[in-house]
């Protein structure tokens, strides 16, 4: 029942979002090419904007994947934390300490700066 509610809410919101766009646009002519040109304050691009985009923070994304992988273990851990007491503290403390080393190392090497 809960999933059904979620599904209905999701579909209604999605449908409303698409519907508003579609209703208003179904009887609209295609804008002219000059209108469709990218806005650059009167200037023009030479090429399409899609390109091999040079992401400047790529080491950060990789660091995140490694870290996030580990964070997923923390959710079940949180549930049994109070029940297990000190054992849980020790285990997770150790685990986080190990991973913090990774973050500190990354920071020292300037990973969070634009490459």
């Amino acid at each position: 029942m809960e999933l059904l509610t979620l599904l209905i809410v999701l579909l209604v919101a999605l449908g409303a979002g698409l519907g508003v766009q579609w209703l208003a646009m179904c009887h609209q002519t295609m804008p002219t090419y000059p209108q469709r040109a990218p806005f650059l304050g009167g200037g023009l691009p030479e090429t399409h904007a899609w390109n091999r985009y040079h992401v400047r923070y790529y080491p950060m994304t990789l660091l995140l994947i490694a870290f996030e992988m580990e964070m997923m273990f923390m959710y079940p851990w949180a549930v049994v934390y109070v029940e297990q007491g000190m054992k849980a503290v020790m285990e997770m403390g150790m685990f986080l300490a190990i991973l913090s080393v990774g973050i500190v190392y990354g920071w020292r090497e300037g990973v969070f700066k634009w490459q």
Partner: protein
Amino acid sequence: MAVSWLSRLAARARVPVFPALGMHGDTILHRLALTPGIELVDSPRHASILLVAGGVPPDLHEALRRLHDQLPAPFATLWYRSAPLSELAGDLRVDDPEALPEALKRLHRELMSGRRDSSPRLLPDEPPNPWEGLGDDGHGGEGMMGGVPYGRPMAMNMHDDIRDGLTLDSLTVTLGPFLPVLPPGLGAKVTLQGDLVQSWVTQLAPYPIALENVFHEALQRPVPIAELELARARHHLQRLAFSLRLSGLEHLALVALRLSRGLNVESRVGRLHRWLTRCGFFRLTAAGRGRLEAGQARRVGGIAARAAGLEEDLRSRDAAYRRLGFTPIVQRGGDTNARWRQTLAEIDHSLQLACRAEQEDLYSEMTEAVETPRGPWDDYRPEDASDILEDLLPGLEWDEALTTIASLDLAGVSEWPLEPLSETSLKDDEERQA
């Protein structure tokens, strides 16, 4: 029925105006920013009215046509102290700043109620390159990267990267002259890799700025120092307001604008300075980038030079200023951060000088040269220095590049003084609207 109800509601919306600035058009924006019911938007797609403010030089007409065609229908164009393009000769032209807000609102209402048709498209409906039915699949493309898919070539790897050596594609675009985040009139050919500026070639120098008449008079005869200093503070406050708006501090930008409009010798900027410090403007937004070398700083002159530690100020040569105990303020660093600290310090300094000069009724004594807010004006007027951007910007991220440009006053000084707006006080303006 439903539609008319909708358009009646739409007619009551704040009028979204996209300003395309011509010569000396920026003064009216300071006024419009404080006018209720008008919203200055950043993109022509978000506007229902294109406001062309100030004369647009003929060589920019092509760019203006392109911009005009980028507004989605229904839209209208309003020409403020500017001659309409020949195709749009029938458009509304307003020269009176008092009448402008009402004209904008009326235009918007007429558009929404259908009493006025949307402005016609000026350029032919043709793709940048013909593509339909061409190429391997009839969409203009050839092979993996070739051809002109949907009318444009694909971005290709042209430049080696300047930071980490990964050579990916670079994008080359011409920006401006109507990009609202650049100084009016500035146009450039920019190559970007990712969000990093790889190269910047200034193609169109920004329009010369018009200074208040008092600076022109100071070269002819002694003028009251209080007036000179207030005009200087006004100029800097307006620049500050532009930069604050750019960094998302709309309310402080309005504070700065209001201050500049009602500026007198009693005004102080201490509170504005404190707010800026507290909200983290200096640390989060204007963080030290765009550092000028001594040579560049000298070329730009004025605030930029003094922010870079050069103690150059023509005012210290003036005997009247010396009597006021004037010594130039300087900062070290010469970066964005130092420039804004310098600007705020100089506004404050100007106001104090003005206050004392008024008490003693002092007049400037040196008439062969004057320190304008833009820099020293001795034998020559301060000239356009926008080509230093070519050395300054490469290697900066887009946001850093724009904050750097905003912190620099690069345009040359126009030979004509600023035409004074008929100054009804701001209070009246706002009260009348409310």
